[in-house]
Each structure stands twice: as C-alpha cells, then as structure tokens.
C-alpha cells in the first residue's frame, strides 16, 4: 500500500481545493496533444486538431480536459485506496478505449508543467515531489487492469 506523509496529504488536498478545473484541464490536455502529437490518435472525432492553435481553441478538447481532471477527484478523496478506486476506469481504458498506458504518463507530465506555471513559487521542489508521486500512483492504478 502507498504510504503518504502528512505533508503529501496536505499538499494534494490544497492543490485540488483551489483547482480551476475549466482552465487547468483544457490546458493540460491541449498541451499533451501539441507536445505529443501521437496522442491525437484517440481523438479522431474531435474535429480540427490540425495545428496548435486549433487544438488549444477546440471546445471538445476543452470539455474533455475538464472531464479528465475531475477524474482525479476520486483519488484526492481516497488517497489510501487509489488502486481500487481506479479498477473500473482501468478496465474501461483498456477494454473499451484501448489507450496505451504510456500515454497516462505523458498527460501527467503535461499536467505537472501546467500546475507549475499556475502555482509559481508555491510549486517548490517538495510540492512537485508530492504532486508527481500522487500522479504516479494514479497512473499506475489506471494501468493495473490491462492484460
């Protein structure tokens, strides 16, 4: 089981308590689609993804980015059982969506960079470590049910 320090719990709770989902979610997903263009393979029906400007302005990308970010809420609420929290979603991503689990890491790296830009000085080394550890646990759980 994952051990969380008090600092890590407090840090994650704090970041998500003031999270602007409709800003950060779209920013993270659109950045992922721009920086790692092969991730666009999963969004064939999202319309215009022809260039960075189109991706960043795409309303379907924005909506989905917000959805994905809210997907982290269950992990925030139950940090001691992240693995079981994501069992169903893991099956979904494997069986139905057929997403290569390597992509989860790419998105989480983009989210880290977006949060870093948003929080500035507050996002110091220790906060970064806690945030990346949290995302790594989520990413791991999402990949668990693949076979």
């Amino acid at each position: 089981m994952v051990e969380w320090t008090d600092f890590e719990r407090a840090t994650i709770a704090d970041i998500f308590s003031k999270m602007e989902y409709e800003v950060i979610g779209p920013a993270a997903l659109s950045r992922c689609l721009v920086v790692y263009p092969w991730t666009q393979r999963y969004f064939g029906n999202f319309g215009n993804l022809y260039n960075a400007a189109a991706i960043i302005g795409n309303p379907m990308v924005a909506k989905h980015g917000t959805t994905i970010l809210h997907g982290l809420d269950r992990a925030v609420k139950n940090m001691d059982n992240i693995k079981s929290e994501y069992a169903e979603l893991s099956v979904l991503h494997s069986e139905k969506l057929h997403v290569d689990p390597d992509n989860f890491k790419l998105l989480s790296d983009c989210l880290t960079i977006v949060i870093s830009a948003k929080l500035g000085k507050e996002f110091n080394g220790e906060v970064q470590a806690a945030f990346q550890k949290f995302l790594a646990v989520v990413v791991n759980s999402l990949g668990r049910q693949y076979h």
Partner: protein
Amino acid sequence: MTSLTAKDKDRVKTFWAQVSGKVEDIGSEAMARMLIVYPQTKTYFAHWKDVSPFSPSAKKHGITVMGGVAFAVTKIDDLKAGLLNLSELHAFTLRVDPANFKIMSHCIMVVMANMFPEDFTPQIHVAMDKFLSALALALAEKYR
C-alpha cells in the same frame, strides 16, 4: 529521434533569448528539484560534502549543467558534432545513465514553466522538449 525543424530551432533560440538573464537560476532550481523529486539521482553526487538540494555544490552544478545546455543552443544545427567532447566526458568519465537526461530535461522544463508561465506555451514546450531530447541523444552518442 526526429531532427529539429527550422521552426523548432527558431522557437528554441527565441525562448532562450527571453530567458537568457535567468539561465543560472533555472539551472540551480532544476538541479534542486531533480535531487528532491528523484532522490536516486543523488547517487551520482556521493562525493559531495553536502548533497542537499540548495547546497553550494548543487547550485554550482546546476549552473554548470545549464551552461552545457546554453552551449548546445549555439550548436543547435549540429548537436552531434558540437557535443562530441561533452559526450566523451559523460561516456567515459561520468558514466551517467542516459535515463537521467530525461529526468533533468523534465525538471528544466518544469522550472521554465514555473518562471516563465506566459512564455512557455505549448508550442515552445514541444520545441524545447524536442531540443532537449536531441541534446540527450547527442550526449549519449559516445556511450557504446
């Protein structure tokens, strides 16, 4: 690995000009974060008296590393040739596992986003990511 397009190089050079005043800060901050977030990287610095993230050794080393990146920007048209000496250093003397180049690149970009939130756009991000990947590849050239 893909080669850098003219646009990529342009974006890297433009962004570099914007951040040139803060290169040392970026270096020492990225170094500190690497030691904190990826503690296994401390194994390369066991010979330091003080391996803590904001120690004089760590700060100095971050500046050294970032100096290398700055040098690579000037050699952006032929990284393999330009970084030959640095590659030999890393291959035969330092023997840093190339997986760590990715870690350092990530930390550098987290700091760039942190210090320049308006400028580190997705377009700049992808160009910088490509550049740092190409840099890492050139650095690993002489490994085997």
